[in-house]
């Protein structure tokens, strides 16, 4: 039996087959349409129903957009123009409210003669973010990014330039303390780098700035936080929250993984308490309760309080997202870093965090988007963000009765910001892709 079988089975390949193109009918637009839209009865039915639904929505929305009025002084003027041009029954959007109140929606009650200052601040912000977000820019530009927050603060709020400079000097003081003390003891150096700058800010920075200002008064007209509003306000709170919550969140995530009992439990308690209470409660705490705890007479800027609360709130979420990334790394990565003799901070900075953060990008950006949209909650503590302004605009006699146009516009602006963040996160994920393709 085996003899005959062996004869039929015997085979030796003499030449290897070359690679070939797939058949033509298996590619192209027609194939895609056939396979994805009209592959069966159910599929055809669903395609037709979907098209009908899209037509239904568009047929109602498109005329409203296309017949819109862009230039008018009030809602009644808008209606007159509509009656004249499109007829009284036509559906028509009155985007004139946007053009009429544009400055207010963007700048709030910022003094009109200083509108250039928020614009310069925005340009500074974009220039500072570029080297952080994109790799093609020389690394030296990061020094500008580090200086930018102080510059932006100065441009937006004004006052003497020595204030932000004195605060910035605190970081230099901290670094100098760290370098000076690290010759003796690493723990002492870390403690010193935290305590000395805080003491400096509390007791030295203020008088120092005052003294310098009296000697050499350089500055811009001071604009109080009460004048801030509109998208400018949302943007400042949102971006400050985003930029501050990431490092804080990472530290909390590392703290939660720490073997040191006190650090671990403090991080867990912080995360759980902050996360377990609604943001709106924290905002009310910031606006009302905080004053009871602070020494009487301290005037602590409301916007600053809101930024701190939003930052703390987002950092608790970031911490949990980053913890997920840390947990997803194989234990071998920690062991390999240890086995090479890297100490804790170096192994975190060079090996663990780059990988953990890469895994966490979608979650981190998700949190950022949430934070940015949640800045609209400040309307409840009396800050005039775009939603707050829309209420004010609708309360005016000219624009009483307008709803959709304002909210469509505000929604669109938020969408543009959030969608850009989402796109950037996808770009970053692709850029950091290292697996074999």
């Amino acid at each position, binding site marked *: 039996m085996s003899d005959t079988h062996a004869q039929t089975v015997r085979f030796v390949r003499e030449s290897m087959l070359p690679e070939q193109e797939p058949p033509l009918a298996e590619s192209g637009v027609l194939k895609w349409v056939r396979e994805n839209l009209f592959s069966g009865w159910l599929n055809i039915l669903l395609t037709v129903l979907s098209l009908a639904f899209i037509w239904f929505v568009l047929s109602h929305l498109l005329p409203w957009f296309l017949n819109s009025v862009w230039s008018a002084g009030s809602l009644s003027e808008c209606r007159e123009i509509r009656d004249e041009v499109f007829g009284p029954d036509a559906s028509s959007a009155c985007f004139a409210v946007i053009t009429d109140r544009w400055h207010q929606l963007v700048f709030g009650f910022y003094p009109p003669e200083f509108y250039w200052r928020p614009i310069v601040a925005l340009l500074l912000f974009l220039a500072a973010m570029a080297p952080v977000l994109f790799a093609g820019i020389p690394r030296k530009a990061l020094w500008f990014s580090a200086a930018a927050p102080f510059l932006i603060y100065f441009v937006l709020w004004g006052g003497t330039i020595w204030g932000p400079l004195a605060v910035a000097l605190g970081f230099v003081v901290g670094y100098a303390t760290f370098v000076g003390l690290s010759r003796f003891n690493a723990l002492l150096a870390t403690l010193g780098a935290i305590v000395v700058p805080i003491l400096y800010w509390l007791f030295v920075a203020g008088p120092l700035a005052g003294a310098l200002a009296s000697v050499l008064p350089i500055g811009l007209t001071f604009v109080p936080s009460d004048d801030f509003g509109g998208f400018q306000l949302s943007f400042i709170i949102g971006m400050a929250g985003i930029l501050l919550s990431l490092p804080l969140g990472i530290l909390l995530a590392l703290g939660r993984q720490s073997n040191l009992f006190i650090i671990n439990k403090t991080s867990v308690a912080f995360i759980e308490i902050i996360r377990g209470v609604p943001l709106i409660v924290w905002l009310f705490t910031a606006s009302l309760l905080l004053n009871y705890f602070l020494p009487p007479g301290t005037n602590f800027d409301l916007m600053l309080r809101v930024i701190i609360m939003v930052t703390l709130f987002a950092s608790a979420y970031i911490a949990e997202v980053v913890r997920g990334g840390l947990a997803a790394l*194989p234990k*071998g*990565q920690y*062991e*390999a*870093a*240890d*086995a*090479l*003799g*890297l*100490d804790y901070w*170096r192994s975190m900075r*060079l*090996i663990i965090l*780059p*990988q953990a953060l*890469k895994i966490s990008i979608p979650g981190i950006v998700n949190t950022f988007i949430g934070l940015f949209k949640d800045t609209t909650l400040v309307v409840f503590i009396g800050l005039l963000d775009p939603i707050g302004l829309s209420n004010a605009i609708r309360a005016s006699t000219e624009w009483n009765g307008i709803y959709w146009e304002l909210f469509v516009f505000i929604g669109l602006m938020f969408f543009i910001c959030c969608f850009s963040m989402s796109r950037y996160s996808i770009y970053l994920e692709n850029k*950091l892709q*290292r*697996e*074999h393709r």
Partner: protein
Amino acid sequence: MTDAAPATPLETQREIDRSHMTVSDEVAIQISGMNKWYGSFHVLRDINLTVYRGERIVICGPSGSGKSTLIRCLNRLEEHQQGEIVVDGTELSNDLKNIDKIRSEVGMVFQHFNLFPHLTILENCTLAPIWVRKVPKKEAEETAMHFLEKVKIPEQAHKYPGQLSGGQQQRVAIARSLCMRPRIMLFDEPTSALDPEMIAEVLDTMIELAEEGMTMLCVTHEMGFARKVANRVIFMDQGQIVEQNEPEEFFNNPQSDRTKLFLSQILGH
């Protein structure tokens, strides 16, 4: 028993150059009365072992016998609870400075390579010299290329680990350890995760290392390697050293019944 052929063809094809394989009487590692528990489970029981400089020791035994745990204790990836371990004259204790010092002198190669996937091969090799040894970048890269040439993959230097085969990755892992110029190398089942064709290339690299007189401790099941290169084979079971001997004696004339059973099982087919 003598003609039980090892499964790896390449490394048996050439004669081993023994001119540098000299064991000095300088002690590299001294373990005395060491015990370790995982919770209440007694993993390592009363381990006493002296490793001299230039020794090539193969540790074998059934899975769960504590052989990996033993060599992981030598650079504090695992903590021992009792007894004393002295590596290169420094005692392993809770002192972080000592631990970092020992870790930078002791290279380790893992079963699953543990290369850093977000860094290129070259960056993998230069990272620790630059950050731990403070070697200038240029010099670190030259050293890295030297060792990558030695493990025969200099052309892969700018790729990422994910683009390399398992055998190549393990050779990079060996080169990465060597870049720290360690005095002792630990191998934790370096070939267990590899295909047979790749086992040979990794063993070849390890043999070359042995020929240069490196002090090596290998946990491995490659008995051909043990026979050719090791000067001592240690057999462990249930967290204890059951038998240790020179390879010829160990394979041809095992003393304990447990060793005989183990050898018959892994060399029997």
